[in-house]
């Protein structure tokens, strides 16, 4: 596969994952913003959402004046994250990027996958702030998630060849990065790991974290028990049954890189980095994660290093020196 196209395919998968993550973050924020404790600090839920799924500074710059009322603020943040074309990480921008990257590799995609990508874009591209409010935010988010799942379903039917592994790589990188940031933000803000009384604001915070991670149902099924912050951290870091955990995403990353670097005779730095991350996350202590965000930020940094290595090895390899080529031909 051409390196250029492989890079594009990896971004296709990253943006797809990003759109879905943003939808979950927004769903969680909408729940928090309507809880009774939100009257004390109506902006809190939206600050969290912007920090996780957007760019707080960009938002501040895009909205001329800080919206006065809680309802106006909600509408502004939702518009920013759903359909603001000037926000590169809004869902509309992400799904546009899915399509643009898809176009460059369209010849390598199944007709069904291209249909899913293209139809998604046509549907989402029609959205603007008014349409989101008119159709109902929950409905719009549900629709976007449906579209993302349609695309993912079509991806799962691809042959297990290079493009499939590149897509898996892109999804894994984005998911691992998101989970590391979500964990860092949420655990850093948690006062303690004591079990919150059911139905309290602190209890809702932990439930909201699971919703943002897309892991609430996974938690219920895994433990068949009430919310225990230690288990929430445990599940999001490395529960073996959930594909949406940090460890799960890193394992996916490792296996994708294993496939993509199989012709390098085990010399891939990207693969080595991914393997180290997998084994380090396995022994991360959830108490330490609450005490300090440093271990999770460390993972984000090292993840970026793995991406750089993968770029160098797979997607943007250093061009072969023209001089060397010239020598060869002469």
């Amino acid at each position, binding site marked *: 596969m051409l390196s250029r196209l492989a890079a594009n395919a990896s971004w296709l998968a990253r943006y797809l994952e990003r759109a879905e993550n943003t939808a979950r973050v927004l769903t969680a924020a909408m729940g928090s*913003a309507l809880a009774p404790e939100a009257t004390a600090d109506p902006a809190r839920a939206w600050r969290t959402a912007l920090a996780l799924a957007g760019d707080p500074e960009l938002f501040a710059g895009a909205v001329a004046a800080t919206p006065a009322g809680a309802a106006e603020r909600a509408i502004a943040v939702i518009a920013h994250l759903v359909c603001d074309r000037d926000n590169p990480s809004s869902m509309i921008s992400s799904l546009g990027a899915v399509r643009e990257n898809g176009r460059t590799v369209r010849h390598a995609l199944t007709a069904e996958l291209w249909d899913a990508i293209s139809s998604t874009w046509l549907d989402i591209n029609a959205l603007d702030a008014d349409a989101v409010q008119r159709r*109902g935010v929950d409905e719009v988010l549900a629709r976007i998630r449906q579209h993302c799942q349609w695309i993912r379903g079509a991806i799962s039917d691809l042959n297990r060849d290079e493009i499939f592994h590149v897509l898996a790589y892109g999804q894994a990188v984005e998911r691992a990065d998101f989970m590391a940031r979500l964990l860092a933000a949420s655990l850093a803000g948690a006062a303690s790991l004591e079990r919150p009384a059911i139905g309290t604001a602190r209890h*809702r915070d932990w439930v909201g974290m699971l919703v943002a991670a897309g892991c609430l149902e996974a938690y*219920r099924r895994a433990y068949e028990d009430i919310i225990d912050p230690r288990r929430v951290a445990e599940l999001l870091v490395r529960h073996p049954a959930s594909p949406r955990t940090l460890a799960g995403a890193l394992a996916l990353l490792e296996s994708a890189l294993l496939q993509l670097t199989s012709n390098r005779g085990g010399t891939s730095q990207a693969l080595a980095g991914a393997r180290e991350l997998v084994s380090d996350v396995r022994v991360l202590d959830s108490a330490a994660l609450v005490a300090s965000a440093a271990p999770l930020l460390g993972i984000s940094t090292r993840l970026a290093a793995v991406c750089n290595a993968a770029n160098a090895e797979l997607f943007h390899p250093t061009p072969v020196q023209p001089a060397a080529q010239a020598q060869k031909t002469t």
Partner: protein
Amino acid sequence: MTTKTHTPAAASPAAPARAVSTVRPRAYNEMGDAAGTFAPYEPLSEWLTTASSDHLEAKRRAAEGIFKRRGITFNVYGDASGTERLIPFDVMPRILSAAEWKTVSAGCCQRVRALNRFLDDIYHGQEILKAGVVPADEVLSNPLYNQAMVGVDLPHGVHAHIAGVDVVRVGPEQWYVLEDNLRTPSGVSYMLENRAAMRQLFPDFFRRQQIAPVDHYPEALLSNLRACAPAGVSDPTVVVMTPGAANSAYFEHAFLAKRMGVELVEGQDLFVDDGYVWMNTTAGARRIDVIYRRVDDDFIDPLAFNPDSCLGVPGIMEVYRAGRVNLANAVGNGVADDKAIYLYVPDMIRFYLGEEPILSNVPTYRLRKADDRAYVLEHLAELVVKEVHGSGGYGMLVGPASTVAEREAYKQRILADPEDFIAQPTLALSTCPTFVAQGIAPRHVDLRPYVLSGGVAGKGPCCTLVPGALTRVALKEGSLVVNSSQGGGTKDTWVLEEAASPETEGARAC
């Protein structure tokens, strides 16, 4: 001889005669009176002045779409046209102030605490019968008194883990309990789904008012069920047991299993071996410790009860009696939510708790008593007559809404089996604004909060209520029958919080 002033013998002394004496008194409107709108309804009232009926209709349709997509359905027995229907949902919320809720929740909790004590007592020492507070024959000869439960010790002495207390209101501070459902009360999934829909439809109200969340109900339930596991089980396996997908409340069974993250089993999945109950899984047999069963007593064990039942588990009663599995709710609860025993609940509260009842009983006539019967037959057109062992609004006569022919037919039924019936004054159930074909109009409502009983090791039983309830509304003008099987609908019920106190709100332990 009876006279016009005959009053039922068991009328609660707290019940003011004025509220029950007239046939069709003016109903109390919960939204406001001539002097203006009551505070909890102010934002709604304000919004209604600007909302067109087209807008309301759009909201109604949106709600219907939400319910359809989520598959929130119920089955009506005896309806051949289709097995799944949407329950009518009214987009206008019912709103209770913190103070109103405090009365209702404390009152319901009090009742359920007393009823749990009563159930444990009548299957053990029978102190209340010895004291003559409840006549022994009313309990021991009651067909719902279950001999199999005599002497069975249950964790924390809890028999009714989940109770649905039906409450009606006739005045600002006058609440009556219509009945206590201690067997398999249903409807809580509507409380939760109604809230989810309302948050989508009317987010602005949730920003303007501090509406207490109810979403943690399944977790509170799970917590209680786990707390009621057999002694010595540290990490119990809890399941929900359903009669199957054809049951009218199947949606709810699946809903609760999903929200608790536990398995949804049928009788055919379970078996008894080695003194325990097990479920068949792909990983082999897995032991079960607590069963939230939505299967009636009669069908739970073909060896112990109805031998024809295919819904139950042969031998489960023996395991249960030995304390190696717990059932929620307990077997044999029917005797306590029977309309005959209902009469004595206020006395139970005094007897067991030494407290005065917070919520009153509706004055009730027993038709097995000649005096009561004669009075009731003379005044059928004013009264509501119910079957003693009936539930769900089936088989009742609402006097003021009945025809002469219906009353005559019902009279014959009463005369054939007088002991099977009770009668109550027609209460002027309070009304709430409801969106109907003609626009916003008052319709009669009732209230069903769900009381959860569990226990803490070393501390004994405790009782929790999420701040919310199912409000059922009679959609037909003037109708007082709110049951979904009889054309009633539901509303979301908002309990307003006084002031933000994040660590004390939510599930409250008694």
